[in-house]
């Protein structure tokens, strides 16, 4: 009987404590502003399960105008792939991708869905990168599971399950969201009921006087292969005008 009362009390307390809903948390995450343009360097470290490291360095330009998203990535290192460039222009649902391999000196259009493909050969997929800050809250059933405190910061733990009919790579995601700034710090990706990948946003920097919260160091680990990728963003410039000439074949070849 006593146990019953305590249990009931705990339940009520929990109900009060979790006053915010999962949907609200994810809507707030989605509502965070994102920069119109971004330019910077990206250092990608691939670490295999034996601990062997391989580093790639990229330069990245991106721009968002209305429903058009443009992105250009150029390899800076290692030397043998230097100059390889990848261009993506997304208009609504349509995506155009181009690839330039300097050894072949030709730009090739890539057709077919690349969503599930690996982002520059890392553990991140294009989808992971694309949806990083913008998990569409309405496409998911978001349930607030619990609250945690880590290093003095309150975290909401939300489970996001794609709604029926929504096409998604994963069948479940568990997202830890910082309650103070509404930025995810850890995401677990589940596939076929099993934990598949874990993304940790290790360093989040604020830009433009706190307007933007950008993860500048993130790790994606494939739980099964024990392979991980550490992504560091450096020399970030936000909201500085990038001319459209950057997102062209000519610029790719340069």
């Amino acid at each position, binding site marked *: 009987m006593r146990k019953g009362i305590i249990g009931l009390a705990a339940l009520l307390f929990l109900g009060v404590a979790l006053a915010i809903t999962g949907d609200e948390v994810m809507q707030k995450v989605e509502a965070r502003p994102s920069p119109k343009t971004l330019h910077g360097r990206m250092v990608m470290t*691939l670490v*295999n*399960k*034996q601990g*062997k490291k*391989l580093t790639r360095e990229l330069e990245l330009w991106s721009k968002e105008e209305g429903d058009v998203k443009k992105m250009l990535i150029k*390899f800076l290192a*290692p030397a*043998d*792939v230097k100059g*390889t460039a*990848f261009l993506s222009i997304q208009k609504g649902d349509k995506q155009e991708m181009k*690839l330039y*391999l*300097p*050894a*072949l000196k030709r730009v*090739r*259009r*890539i*057709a*077919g*869905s*690349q969503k*599930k*493909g*690996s*982002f*520059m*050969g*890392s*553990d991140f997929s294009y989808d992971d990168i694309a949806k990083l800050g913008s998990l569409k809250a309405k496409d998911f059933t978001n349930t607030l599971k619990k609250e945690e405190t880590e290093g003095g910061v309150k975290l909401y733990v939300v489970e996001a399950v794609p709604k029926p009919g929504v096409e998604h790579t994963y069948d479940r995601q568990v997202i830890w969201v910082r309650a103070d700034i509404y930025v995810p710090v850890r995401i677990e990706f589940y596939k*076929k*009921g*099993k934990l598949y990948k874990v993304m940790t946003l290790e360093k989040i920097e604020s830009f433009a006087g706190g307007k933007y919260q950008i993860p500048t160091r993130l790790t994606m680990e*494939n739980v*099964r*292969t024990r*392979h991980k990728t550490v992504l560091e963003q450096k020399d970030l410039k936000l909201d500085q005008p990038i001319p459209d000439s950057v997102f062209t074949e000519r610029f790719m070849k340069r």
Partner: protein
Amino acid sequence: MEALSRFATRHPWSVILLFLAITLALGSGLSRLRFDNSPESFVPPDLPAKRLLDEVRDTFGSADMAIAALKGEVWSVEGLEALRAATEAVAGVDGVLRVTSLANAQRMEEADGDLVIEDLLPEELTPAEIPGIRDYVEHHPLYAGRLVSPDGRYAAVILEVDPGQDMKRLNREILNALKAHWKGPIYLSGTPALSGYILDTMQRDLPVQMAVAALIIALVLYLNFRSTRGVLLPLLTVTTALVWSLGLGGWLGFKLGSISSILPVVVLAVGSSFTLHILNRFYHELAHGEDRPAAIRLAVRETGLGVLVSALAAGAGLAALYTSSIPQIKFFGVLAAFGVLVAFLGASLLAPAVLALLRNPRRLLDPERPDAISRLMFALGDWLKGRTRGILVAAAVFLLLMVFFATRIQVETSFLAYFPKSSPPRVATELIDRVFGGSDTLTVVVEGNLKDPALLRAIYRFEEEAKAQPAVGSAVSIADVIREIHKTLTGSYGFPDSEEAAAQELLLYQMSGDPEELARFITEDASAAQITVQVRSLPSSQMEALVHRLKDLAEATIAPHADAVKFTGTTVLMLEVMRLILHDQYVSLILALVLVALFNALLLVSGRVGAVSVLPLGLTIAGQFGLMGAFGIPLDTATALIAAIAIGVGDYSVHIIVRYLEELRKGAVPEAAARTSLYVSGRAVFFTALAIGGGFMALLFSGFAPIQTFAKLMGFTVGATALFALTVLPAALLTWVRRYRNKEVVERA
């Protein structure tokens, strides 16, 4: 020995309780006993080839592939959808690391100037798309004939599995997952699958074999004693021995494999002979009017030496297997030796204790009474007189002939050889060999700069030439992947002309799909790659020749451009095992024979007697190997044990020798001594041989071909040792041991 029996008759309850306590303590280990027949259970962990395989597994993921062939109309919407569902289901099975089939294959091609990179099967499949997909697959060097048979009637699902898994469970779950979606017949093969089948067969065989062995032994015991007690008492001692040895195995963390699964039968058959000898004598003494305690004491005293010597010899022969480098054989040797010694303790302590408690049987039958068999033995003794020289010459000729045949023995370690011709694993393997060009895999690891076009070209040349070998189905590596990408990018098959171009094409491949896909071909830093060569399941000797040819080929093509080229894979590992078996064979054989001779010499206080005592054994072992050579019976992991076990079962000679020496000491002339020894001990030897041989026949019920062969060879072994012990041994004794002036031999024990 006498002290033992006196103690047992005076404190029977203490003895019984002590046995019971130990049985409970060790027996509780039974539940800890595990089964394992992975290739690892055959390989010493520090073997360089094993370390290489582990390294390769660590780098490229699993090196062991199981292949499932799904029969049905592949090129239809239903067929491909079913394949997709089956592939997805099987990927979810715990322990399956990677699955490759048409359902998750990629398509990379040029269409209207665009580079198309997409899943081979679109999400919504329509009949109109199938001809296009089929055409693409049939012209794709990595897919054609590998993922689908040329006639489109079989689809392959290639499964890379975690070698540490319970393969029996894995087989079952893989098949269930596939069957849930694929309606046609499914065939599963490849080393991991065969491992699973072996485990399954073994666990089903074990209780059957034990029951049949116990039944046959009981029957022989009944024929000999015509009493329930005569049946139950020996069975009690061997069951105790079995529980102790299997329980000990459980506590020590040993795992039973296909070889060690014959352990129960060995302990049952060998161990029951000890109690049989003692009981024989006990009833004989009772029939001659001795009271019970005296009969027990006399029985143990008179036969104890023989039993002790044969137990020690059997123990030594089996324990000599400990020198084997093959873990499974090592464990088997230790546990079997332990079991045999426990059976000896049971015969000389437990059996007398139980006998001391039981009332005398109402109807007494002297087992050593003159009957047809003892009359036969008597006649044999007469017949031997004057023929000793002839017998010894015949034995020498037999020895030479058998040694000559023995040189032709072939060694066999392929897992496929375990299965009888029409068994499902064999059928599946042969089908997959035929339809997909091979169910077995060899792995060639190439270390060097894999972005070097010259090395890529060399690898491709190696693959082309390897595929020209009739036993090779396919050979796939990063070279094929790059060649395919290069064709898509440039329109013609070939290789990039610079390191940079190769690096960029690799990058494209990496970006276009799952990076894991690439990880199975090449390391991330492009410093090592593996070539997967799909080969038919071959007998070990042919496989060895093939590996040899491929090694030469790799040496000529790849080696000049690479830092290192290494061959590995489970099949290569099993070839290593083959070499170990051959080498161990000599070591354990010589060691065992020397040990037995030594024991006999020490206990009978005569080096000459010791040497003569191993004659029947030596002839039998020569006969075993000679027969194997003559009839093409391969030396495999099961038949490799045959010599050691022959020593365990075949030491009847000692009973005859003990009797013979005893008669000499009493002043009999050698010829009379020989005749008496045959008359008195011959009958026991005959029934022991029958019990042991019969017990081993239980192994004919095994689902494994090598163990069936082993059983047949054991039949020969038991018969031959008995025959030699009854003919050559007396002849040798009459020729070389005509005087014996020592103290009473039996007392020494």
